């Protein structure tokens, strides 16, 4: 089971945090601090896995963002790497050549996409098509661009 997913920049600024188990704010802050220090300190050509307390940490850097996944001990590490990759693919498909700015300005979308394919700490839907289809379906329920432009700017 996955415990948490964190996205942070190379300067350590957190862009997304998803927690799959209940935790106090204090614990969350501590984990965020620990993870950023741990991952940012890694050498370039080391392996992508770290043993931390009783969890495994799988991390990967995509452009300027670090994706950091904390999983329980029995999880398959290589597959966790692929979970991260799958998420990046989905973001890429949705935003078209995704970059960090997209995630900053559309953070709620990033969460929605994440929720489509992960749930309760497990991967929910492994078919990329299915996930894309459901994201598009929910987008259909939203406004068009004209409606967007007519909205107030504050």
């Amino acid at each position, binding site marked *: 089971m996955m415990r948490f997913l964190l996205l942070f920049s190379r300067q350590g600024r957190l862009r997304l945090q998803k927690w799959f188990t*209940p935790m106090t704010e204090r614990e969350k802050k501590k984990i965020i601090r620990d993870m950023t220090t741990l991952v940012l300190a890694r050498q370039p050509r080391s*392996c992508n896995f770290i043993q931390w307390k009783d969890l495994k940490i799988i991390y990967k850097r995509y452009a300027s963002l670090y994706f950091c996944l904390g999983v329980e001990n029995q999880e398959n590490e290589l597959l966790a790497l692929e979970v991260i990759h799958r998420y990046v693919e989905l973001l890429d498909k949705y*935003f078209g050549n995704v970059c960090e700015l997209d995630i900053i300005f559309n953070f709620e979308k990033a969460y929605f996409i994440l929720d489509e394919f992960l*749930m*309760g700490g497990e991967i*929910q839907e*492994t078919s990329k098509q299915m996930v894309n289809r459901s994201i598009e*379906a929910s987008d259909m329920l939203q406004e068009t661009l004209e409606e967007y432009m007519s909205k107030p700017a504050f």
Partner: protein
Amino acid sequence: MPAVSKGDGMRGLAVFISDIRNCKSKEAEVKRINKELANIRSKFKGDKALDGYSKKKYVCKLLFIFLLGHDIDFGHMEAVNLLSSNKYTEKQIGYLFISVLVNSNSDLIRLINNAIKNDLASRNPTFMNLALHCIANVGSREMAEAFASEIPRILVAGDTMDSVKQSAALCLLRLNRTSPDLVPMGEWTARVVHLLNDQHLGVVTAATSLITTLAQKSPDDFKTSVSLAVTRLSRIVTSASIDLQDYTYYFVAAPWLSVKLLRLLQCYPPPEDTSLRSRLTECLETILNKAQEPPKSKKVQHSNARNAVLFEAISLIIHHDSEPTLLVRACNQLGQFLQHRETNLRYLALESMCTLASSEFSHEAVKTHIETVINALKTERDVSVRQRAVDLLYAMCDRSNARQIVAEMLSYLETADYSIREEIVLKVAILAEKYAVDYTWYVDTILNLIRIAGDYVSEEVWYRVIQIVINRDDVQGYAAKTVFEALQAPACHENLVKVGGYILGEFGNLIAGDPRSSPLVQFNLLHSKFHLCSVPTRALLLSAYIKFINLFPEVKATIQDVLRSDSQLRNADVELQQRAVEYLRLSCIASADTLATVLEEMPAFPERESSILAKLKKKKGPGKLPENVNGSAEEPAASSKPDTACWWTSSPTSRLLLLLLLLLLLLRWRTTCPGEPSSLRPPPFAPRRSDVLLRLLRFICKNNGVLYENQLLQIGLKSEYRQNLGRIYVFYGNKTTSQFLGFSTAVSSSDLNVHAKAVEPVIEGGAQLQQILNIECVTEFCDVPVLHIQFRPPSNVLTPDSVCQSRYGGTLQNIEVKLPVMLNKFFQPTEMTSQDFFQRWKQLGA
């Protein structure tokens, strides 16, 4: 213009985010945020009801502010309101907000649960999914109570859409993890297992996750899933890559599902049904074969997915531990990975091999890779890979390669990362002890450990080496010699001083014959480190010194001088001061025999579970420690309790101290006990007041005995009482050889009537005079009567006064003795029934 791709970007939100990003400093950011918070607050409180879009926008802004790291204490109500909106986006934001900012306000919880219930009943799959997601994200107990019965029904209902089924399965899984008692699985079990046969692979994936967790808790209920899982797995593994369409990930067929099925199979032993078992074996062989084929794509995702399935299959093979061919093949495959280009694969191979090393079939196969692993230890740049290599060396260690492995680990220790040193120290200590054929090697190894990484050598390690040295006679001399040599290094670690101090204290005599390690040299060596050590070490050294006094009388004076110095006797630390004082005293007053008994060689420790193993388990956390087993029955106990306060098993120093204290107390007691005076010592001239009081008090319960005694006179009593009358026969014994003259007595009493018969004024030497006292008790009394005696002793006896005057002479003696006539002497028993007694008793309280 911020990047907006499609659909509903909230313009106000985008502007706000830009503003934040443009803030030059933290203070500006906080200022902007506070401004926004005030704005939102006023909007929420305002008279005009906000429209859905604005509410959504503000709630989203609050969420953003929260995720930046600031605290939000309002907005929950508005978010909950959004839940009941009909617009999907508004609902979505509402759910997101309450999943992230979980609130335990019970009113809100009720409202949220209501909204969720509505959405679940709405039959709109998108809404249902949102609701299920929220339950899975929050998973609180209240939600579990409200929905735990509903969700299984949704899961197995025929008309539920596939996507909803997936969500329901994982939602149920989440609830089961947090509140297992509330999730009723009994009636749904069969239907859930049946989901494994579903056409939609997503549903199967979700169902497998659910079943795996449930099967861990109650394996029997889900036994039927094994055959279904095997069938499914073999279908996937043998499928061509186009069959599964979208579930193929970079040319690997359904990797997630395969891994999950393999994980499910790891909850059960190998299937008993032979056809099933052979099918499974076939499956696993196919996976192993596929790993040997050339890759279909250069992309790392392809190899990752393929290898992920491979590693999980190897885990299953290891778990079953029943097919030697498979195990050997797995081992070979891992051996190939040990030298792969990719660091990830080397890491995982080392990790998997650790588990493989504990199986008896493959232990030998694993050992063949020892050179590769040692090489990895020396050359890997990544510290986590080196750590895995250490773990593997530990796991594959057995009698044949113990020396080599321990030597490698020791040399690695010299350059190891500080965070992992303690673990390596513990492992080396365990290995050295377990595989020591020759205990001299063990002693060397531990001393090396202390030399290299003294700070990380915990107490358990050096207690253990001392326990072993004490228990084994053959290694004691060697230990003493080695420790002596090690201590001569100019800068040695404090732990070495502790070990050295203890061992020389116990066994220094074994090397004292050699002039280079004579007692004085040993003492000087230890004492030269004394002032550099912390308090506990110094305490230990003081114990060693007193042991030296016992072993080597020739250095007694030297050591006593050290103990006598003010820095010891007036040391600020209470423990050291006490030890110095007591040891000094012990060395002065105890005879050689006593000292030898007190400081006898430590008896052998009872053979127990090593506390080092317990400490290592605690450090590693649950489930991570690869058991160091070489296939036979050397399994370390699963739960060895760490050392507690049992004095027998505590540190050697504290045992010695306790022993010493007991003996000292004994000695002290003997010198001051007011018991029967020994014949060697004459009684004191005037008995001490405490003695007199003691004697008097003894008469509370007895009527006869000696009341008073001094050098001249002994007074004995015999008394009898009846009702309110008593009679005491007082016997005055003249202990000298000449007469007492002018002997007279008088009794004074406040409340009693005492009638004393007259006595002769002369008592002959060595004779006894009897006096009868008649006593009548007329009222209750507190004070005992006092007997006054006057007499003149013979002139040839020294009295305290006459000593000063240097004149013998019978000076008048005045003695006052309390007579033991107490109220209880006049008590009489009475009989009554228990009712009467309790009645009276209760009256007393009132």
